[in-house]
């Protein structure tokens, strides 16, 4: 009896009825099925079907944007796992940190990963922004995506900052004290904002609970939402910009598509007949 080769085995898998019911297309060997692989999938659908060869070069992005996204995913996964062991109450939060170190299996690694990814995300997001800036990636038609990016930068900083309080140790407590004192200096509304954020005038159990909700629910949801908009806009803005040297040519072609191209064709459902 001969065993099927790897290709044959894959082929059989792909022709399986269950597989077909999930992916609804054959092997991605033609450009048509490769396109289907992207826009037939709700998650990959946010990517463009085609990309410029140039934007795939490492130097075009250094994969900083994808790295930031990857860190966000890692932070979500490790963060949810950490939530299984964490009580947002003082001083129990601190003892939970101790438990993570001494009791929970791999608790140290879990906490290290979350903390490390959080620090890395701040660095990577700044770096990504500077890289986009020096490549001129903010130029029309990408202005708005740059603004979305600034929103993401602020969210990243707030996420990191609200997380900083959660271990409830001396480092956390005094770092947040220093920071929230600054809010008090905002003219007119400073004290009220500070009170709202801390749930009181001092940093105590209420502040911990509020920072916890911000850190684990509100800010991640906002960030996920903006990330989706960010990615969608990359696609809608015609993929990544091609960088400084081609910028003139690029801009010209974009302007002509927007201004001179006045013939618009809208097909209503003409795919049916295929």
């Amino acid at each position, binding site marked *: 009896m001969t065993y099927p080769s790897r290709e044959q085995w894959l082929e059989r898998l792909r022709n399986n009825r269950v597989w077909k019911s999930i992916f609804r297309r054959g092997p991605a060997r033609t450009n048509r099925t490769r396109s289907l692989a992207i826009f037939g999938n709700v998650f990959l659908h946010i990517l463009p079907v085609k990309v410029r060869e140039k934007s795939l070069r490492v130097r075009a992005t250094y994969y900083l944007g*994808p790295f930031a996204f*990857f860190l966000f995913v890692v932070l979500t996964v490790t963060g949810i796992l950490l939530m299984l062991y964490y009580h947002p109450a003082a001083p129990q939060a601190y003892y939970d940190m101790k438990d993570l170190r001494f009791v929970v299996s791999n608790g140290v690694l879990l906490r290290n*990963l979350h903390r490390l990814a959080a620090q890395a995300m701040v660095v990577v997001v700044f770096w990504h922004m500077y890289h986009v800036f020096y490549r001129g990636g903010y130029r029309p038609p990408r202005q708005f995506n740059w603004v979305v990016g600034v929103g993401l930068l602020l969210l990243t900083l707030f996420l990191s900052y609200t997380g900083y309080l959660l271990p409830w140790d001396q480092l956390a407590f005094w770092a947040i004290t220093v*920071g929230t004192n600054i809010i008090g200096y905002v*003219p007119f509304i400073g004290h009220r904002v500070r009170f709202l954020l801390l749930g009181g005038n001092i940093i105590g159990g209420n502040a911990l609970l509020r920072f916890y909700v911000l850190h684990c629910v509100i800010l991640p949801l906002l960030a996920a939402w903006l990330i989706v908009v960010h990615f969608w806009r990359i696609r809608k803005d015609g993929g990544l910009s091609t960088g400084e040297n081609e910028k003139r040519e690029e801009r010209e072609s974009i302007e002509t598509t927007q201004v001179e191209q006045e*013939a618009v*064709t809208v097909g*209503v*459902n003409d795919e049916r007949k295929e």
Partner: protein
Amino acid sequence: MSEKSNYEAGFGSDAVKDPQRIVFITKKTSAQVKGVKPRQLMSYPHLVLREVIVFEIFTVALVIVALFWDAPLKQLADPLLTPNPAKAPWYFLGLQELLHYLPPVVAGVLIPTLVIVALVVIPYFDVNIKGEPLWASNRQRRLMVFLGVVAALLFVFGIHEAFDVVIPTIIFASLSVAAYFAPPRGGRLIRYLSGRPLSWWVMSWFIAVSLTLTLVGTFLRGPGWSLVWPGR
């Protein structure tokens, strides 16, 4: 567009039975797009595969570092025991450093707000879009304004003895002035610098100042926010 309609439109409302095309054609029908089309590849597999590989490398790297580096944990929070100095997380230490020099409303509220506003408006200013080299035209007037702004900055931060703002500012201003006076056939660095637009100078200066502030705040500040050598 008002006189004679130069387009035709049709509309079928039963999408299944009666597929229709609505066509708008203006007088100038040439929907021509200039410029060469760069080579394109299919996202699947070219982009997807690359991203998967990169994600795998990142995962391995992150886990390796997390095995050897430990997240800090000090004693239980104690409102009565103020550490000296009390430091913000590292990414805010640049701000805390400014707070040491300037009044809180300026360092803690005004400057951060200005930075955020400046970041948001970058793509909406034509100077940043055109990216003309700073010293390419209008040279003398620009030099005057440039020196005026630099002098004002140096004055404000100088009287507050903010050395970690003043030093990078002096370095950047000197580089820019050097690019101004550079002979047209100077070395590579000079040629590079004299081709830089205003936005490049402002952003690079901003990055240099914030890096310096953050590094000084992180490593060189001890009790009472006094200067100390790292590791002491």
